[in-house]
């Protein structure tokens, strides 16, 4: 079982504390994405698993064995980098076969393994070419082929499709995920692109400033962000976040946003559920994704009048910047639903509204139950 366990990992670069007591278990056959902005420690973590970076404290276990003392080559792990690290003078075939040459496999065995990998990557017709005659996507397919051919216990990938253009990235995401389903190798994948993380991962581990922020399935981190950092890092367009205060009234709770820019009505028990968690500080931040801001063209109960300030048509839907007092809230609407400058009515979907401590950024209530 090629599970990977990281226990209390710490790493310094000089005075720079880049990994801070990281604990993470990657299950056998699991596809885990380390997601975060540049400098968050995700690549250093990956390199530590690979043995390319020594750690200052903690344990790394692969198949329940501590590997800190093992050289990179002895960990039976394959690494795919962002930049296609291929040998320019060798054909695609020889590049893929290269790791097997060192193990002195028979020629027939090498041929069979290269053929098998090339088939699953759909690059059989390219095997005689040198890297200079390949497109970016095909070069990266060859690089992945070279990693797969050894049938490693685990695959580590560092932004493997980050250098490709947008359309090709879209296609490669599908291929990588299919490949994982076929090979079932435990995979740790590093990216700063939340779309990629959401699309590929069984579980996402989100890092910031060397600290693991949240680990969960894509649905978990999207729908139940543990803190403001995760809430705003995952999802596009970004979650609306604004100062808020809550006040109970007869049977309802009024949620004021901004500096009293607007008040939305929520169910009566909201005050108890959120305030109970916020006893230490009453400064609250409200977060709601654009799809949680509900818009209608008719005046309706519970909706407040707002101005559709800017309409961004994205084809399948529109993103509308609503002017709510001095605040802007972005809403997702059907294409052509609202026009710029028009008055519309809005409310917040309670089930999709999050509350955070303004002081710590921690979620006060992991999303209210429906």
């Amino acid at each position, binding site marked *: 079982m090629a599970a990977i366990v990281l226990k209390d990992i710490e790493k310094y670069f000089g005075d720079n504390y880049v990994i801070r007591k990281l604990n993470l278990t990657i299950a056998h056959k699991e596809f885990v994405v380390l997601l975060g902005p540049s400098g968050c420690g995700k690549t250093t973590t990956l390199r530590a698993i690979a043995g390319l970076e020594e750690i200052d404290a903690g344990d790394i276990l692969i198949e329940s064995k501590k590997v800190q003392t093992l050289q990179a080559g002895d960990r039976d792990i394959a690494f795919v980098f962002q930049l296609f690290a291929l040998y320019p003078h060798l054909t695609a075939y020889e590049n893929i076969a290269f790791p097997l040459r060192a193990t002195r496999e028979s020629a027939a065995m090498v041929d069979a393994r290269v053929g098998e990998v090339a088939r699953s990557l759909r690059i059989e017709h390219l095997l005689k070419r040198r890297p200079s005659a390949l497109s970016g996507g095909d070069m990266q397919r060859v690089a992945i082929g070279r990693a797969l051919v050894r049938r490693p216990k685990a695959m580590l990938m560092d932004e493997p499709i980050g250098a490709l253009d947008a359309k090709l990235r879209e296609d490669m995401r599908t291929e990588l995920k299919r490949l994982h389903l076929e090979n079932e190798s435990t995979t740790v994948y590093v990216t700063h692109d939340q779309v990629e993380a959401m*699309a*590929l991962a069984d579980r996402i581990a989100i890092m910031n400033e060397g600290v693991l922020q949240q680990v969960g399935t894509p649905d978990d981190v999207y729908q139940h962000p543990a803190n403001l950092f995760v809430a*705003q890092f995952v999802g*596009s367009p970004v979650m609306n976040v604004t100062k808020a205060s809550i006040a109970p009234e007869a049977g309802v709770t009024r949620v004021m946003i901004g500096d009293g820019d607007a008040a939305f009505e929520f169910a009566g028990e909201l005050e108890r559920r959120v305030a109970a968690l916020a006893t230490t500080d009453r400064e609250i931040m409200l977060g709601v*994704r654009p799809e949680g801001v509900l818009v209608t063209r008719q005046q309706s109960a519970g909706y407040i009048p707002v101005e559709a300030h800017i309409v*961004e048509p994205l*084809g399948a839907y529109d*993103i509308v910047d609503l002017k709510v007092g001095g605040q802007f809230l972005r809403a997702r609407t059907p294409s052509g639903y609202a026009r710029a400058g028009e008055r519309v009515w809005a409310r917040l979907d309670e089930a999709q509204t999050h509350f955070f401590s303004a002081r710590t950024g921690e979620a006060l209530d992991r999303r209210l139950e429906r």
Partner: protein
Amino acid sequence: MAGVGLDGVTKRFGRHAAVDALSLDIADGEFFVLLGPTGAGKTTTLRLIAGLEKPDEGEIAIGGKNVGDWSVAERDVAMVFQYYSLYPRYTVRQNLAFPLKSKVHRYGPAEIDRRIAGAARMLRIEHLLDRKTDKLSGGEMQRVSIGRAIVREPRVFLMDEPLSNLDAKLREALRSELKDLQMRLRATFLFVTHDQIEAMSMGDKVGVLNHGRIIQVGTPGEIYGAPHDTFVAAFVGTPAMNLIKGELSGGRIAVPGAFALPLDDAGRRRLMLNDGPLIVGIRAEDVRLGGEGVAAARVHHVENHGVEKIVTLRAGDCLFKATVPAMSPVAVEDSVRFAWNQDKVQGFDAETGLNRTRHDMAAGG
């Protein structure tokens, strides 16, 4: 402020026509986006309008006047680049003042102060005015670069991928800021990008450019809903429009070895194509999954996008995408049935790639 017109403009570098008989009409006060892949001729077009390049053929007009023999300064346009070219050891205020102290445009101190204050307020960088530019974040630097264009009060703003170097979140925020700015200034913006989301979200009009030629000019809705050809169809929209080779025969679209979808009379009449091969285009959001579907496929791949899932379906060798709500229970290798929204099917000529679909603009715009 002024409109911009290009009439049959060609610019060659050696034997290669970077811009090829290009005609464009950009209205006064319009946010016009020139969209195309790398090497399409977008930047060359901007430089031609700015007067930094001379066309080999054709005419360029600004504010209705032929500017063929006008200097860069006389054209009075402002350019904002992808790489912010700020003076690093100077403050934001000094950087904003530079364009107002040039030989051609020289203003008094009171006027300079007024313009800097106005631009800073508009861009919300008032608190940064006395900071040195090397202490600014990427987003702040790009705001200052835009500020340097605003203070000049030019007749036209030319923007060359100004958001490309910023991270995703910042790009998103600056998209609506720029659109808001253009509306408040009532300025003519010509904005160049390879990013179709920027083009769709900001442009009043979008011109799609490829190999130096304009392929289509239209509102974002027109470009998305009625693409001129398979190039535009594949370039605009995420995920890209499904483009599938098929056969039109007897009121249905057959994809050999994969599936056949019936067309009703209205659906058939929309397609101005004879029976025979075609390329059929359908967007992911117009493919519906469900028991009442008219054909079968397998789930090849599922991508979680938070608000929704994008499912890749497989029928025979044919892969295509469908958008489903976030909570839909679909798993890889599930057998599913699907149907297409017939009003949204696009038929392209299999030879030329040209769209041969009748578009009811009232519904499609």
